[in-house]
């Protein structure tokens, strides 16, 4: 008699069954989303039809017809797809160099903020607070229009920095090494040295492991590599790399490497700006290692350097790496502001192709896909690293 009263699982009306409700909820949700997307796409189709357009990527094979003044070797007669690729490489170029510079600035300023020297501490603090609270674009404009194009002298009377670096209104000229014909011979030594170094590293590491002793296998490997690379340099006939120094000829410099005004301004702006954020991350990371950890490490008799290498760095890095990656991503995304100061990054090339061809939808998809790919690749790498570094937590 009672068993009838007990509502058993067979007789639940579907509108009260959690499992059924969940499925219905999700289906409904997806239907609404799909309807929204369908509506947008439908509008798109109608609009394209009235404008007499269609969607397709064949225009990428057409001749680009516009110049790109820096980056990979490129001709206006090359196809759009290649022009876009030049833009992508330019984005990666400014992003990678910017990331290196920003990291250096960030570490120096971050450590300076914790300095025992009052003046240094305050200076670093002012740098961070000033830079972080002014829009990046204002800073970029400042670097580009005010510093590069107004404050710097004409090519004729460039500002010379030690090491034959010339700052001019037309860009920055720095000495640069170019490969000579014996370069490939030397590369052979370099690659050989690298291989040998890896072997040495592995051997030394297993040896240390077996002997159960501490040591620096990486230092051994580095030594081997440098030795062989050096030996190779002298064994190769003629210098594999030739240093060319910028020299003023009539109206312009020849030799060396030319960094365009927009590239220099973008690089400076991005690294100075991101450096301020990285400084805060570095500082927080170092502060996150509790005093007790350092005291404990000292108490077991580790030397200062060992404390830093074995206790502070691993823990600080665990705190630093995730926000650092997002700063790197931010820098990469911010490099799209290049378009406003005329550097040919992927955003700039992309919009130029749009202006030439009128392909709005396609170019936006391409631009977004490029940035998304970079973001996704970075976060995948990041996740992998995080998983490896994660403390064993309960």
């Amino acid at each position, binding site marked *: 008699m009672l068993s009838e009263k*007990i509502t058993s*699982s067979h007789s639940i009306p579907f509108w009260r*069954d959690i499992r059924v409700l969940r499925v219905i909820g999700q289906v409904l949700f997806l239907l609404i989303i799909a309807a929204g997307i369908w509506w947008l796409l439908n509008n798109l189709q109608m609009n394209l039809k009235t404008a007499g357009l269609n969607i397709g990527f064949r225009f990428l094979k057409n001749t680009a017809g516009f110049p790109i003044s820096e980056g990979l070797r490129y001709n206006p007669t090359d196809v759009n797809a290649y022009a876009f690729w030049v833009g992508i490489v330019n984005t990666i170029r400014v992003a990678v160099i910017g990331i290196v510079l920003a990291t250096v600035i960030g570490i120096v300023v971050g450590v300076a903020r914790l300095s025992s020297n009052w003046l240094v501490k305050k200076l670093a603090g002012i740098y961070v607070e000033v830079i972080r609270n002014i829009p990046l674009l204002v800073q970029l404009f400042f670097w580009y229009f005010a510093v590069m194009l107004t404050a710097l002298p004409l090519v004729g009377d460039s500002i010379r920095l030690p090491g034959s670096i010339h700052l001019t209104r037309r860009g920055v000229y720095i000495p640069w090494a170019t490969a000579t014909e014996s370069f490939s011979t030397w590369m052979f030594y370099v690659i050989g040295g690298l291989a040998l170094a890896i072997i040495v590293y592995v051997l030394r590491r297993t040896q240390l492991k077996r002997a159960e002793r501490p040591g620096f296998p990486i230092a051994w490997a580095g030594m081997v590599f440098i030795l062989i690379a050096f030996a190779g340099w002298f064994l190769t006939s003629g210098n594999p790399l030739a240093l060319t120094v910028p020299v003023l000829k009539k109206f312009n410099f020849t030799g060396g490497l030319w960094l365009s005004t927009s590239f220099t301004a973008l690089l400076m702006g991005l690294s100075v700006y991101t450096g301020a954020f990285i400084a805060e991350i570095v500082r927080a990371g170092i502060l996150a290692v509790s005093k007790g950890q350092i005291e404990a490490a000292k108490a077991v008799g580790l030397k200062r350097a060992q404390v830093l290498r074995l206790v502070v760095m691993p823990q600080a890095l665990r705190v630093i790496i995730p926000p650092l990656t997002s700063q790197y991503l931010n820098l990469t995304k911010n490099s799209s502001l290049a378009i406003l100061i005329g550097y040919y990054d992927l955003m700039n090339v992309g919009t130029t192709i749009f202006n030439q061809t009128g392909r709005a939808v396609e170019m936006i998809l391409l631009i977004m896909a490029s940035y998304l790919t970079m973001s996704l690749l970075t976060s995948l790498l990041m996740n992998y690293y995080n998983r490896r570094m994660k403390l064993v937590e309960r």
Partner: protein
Amino acid sequence: MSVTSNEGIIIYRDVHKWYGDFHALRGITFTMQKGEVIVICGPSGSGKSTCIRTINRLEEHQRGQIIVDGVELTNDLRNIDTIRREVGMVFQQFNLFPHLRVLQNVALAPFWVLKMKKSKAEEIAIQLLERVGIPEQAQKYPAQLSGGQQQRVAIARALAMTPKIMLFDEPTSALDPEMIKEVLDVMKELARSGMTMIVVTHEMGFAREVANRIVFFDFGQLIEENTPEEFFHNPQHERTKLFLSQILDY
């Protein structure tokens, strides 16, 4: 949904639960009568907490049958709502709502779930706070109270729904020693008033004094079930004897 007394207010029939591959409850079967006080003990990780959390479906069981007050716990939304209204629960970490005052903590559920008038809900809340002995704290925030006081508020909050059954999940484990007694006193009073209670605890003194039955859990199984008298003086199972020797020979 009335219940014939001989059937039991809580019925477990071969209840199983897995966390991934881990078999947390391995065929629990027992029946509890209205008005009973049952103490569940056992080593940590033995499944005792999991077991009482299946009663109000904070955890879902995957096999077997749980019937609370004549209602089987299934995926039926209404049944779950019904049971949660009838079963109060007190947690190890109190879990008071830190953004609400003590009074609001207690009056929240009557107001929103039972759709009581606000004045009525607050009146009940005051009464309950008097019952657990802290009416003067009504306007404070939980963080301003001691652990013992917080746990008493948590009991009042659970009682505000006038539950038929009260679950206590290690209610004194997070408390400083000097505060344990004030909470246990409230629980004793509750037991004497005829409340049906299941208590997971290590307080053996409380178990001896208040419990009708003691249930011993290990490895997700119900190892032994006995009256306090028998349980402490004449444990049947080797595992129980070992456990008792570990916690009592101090």
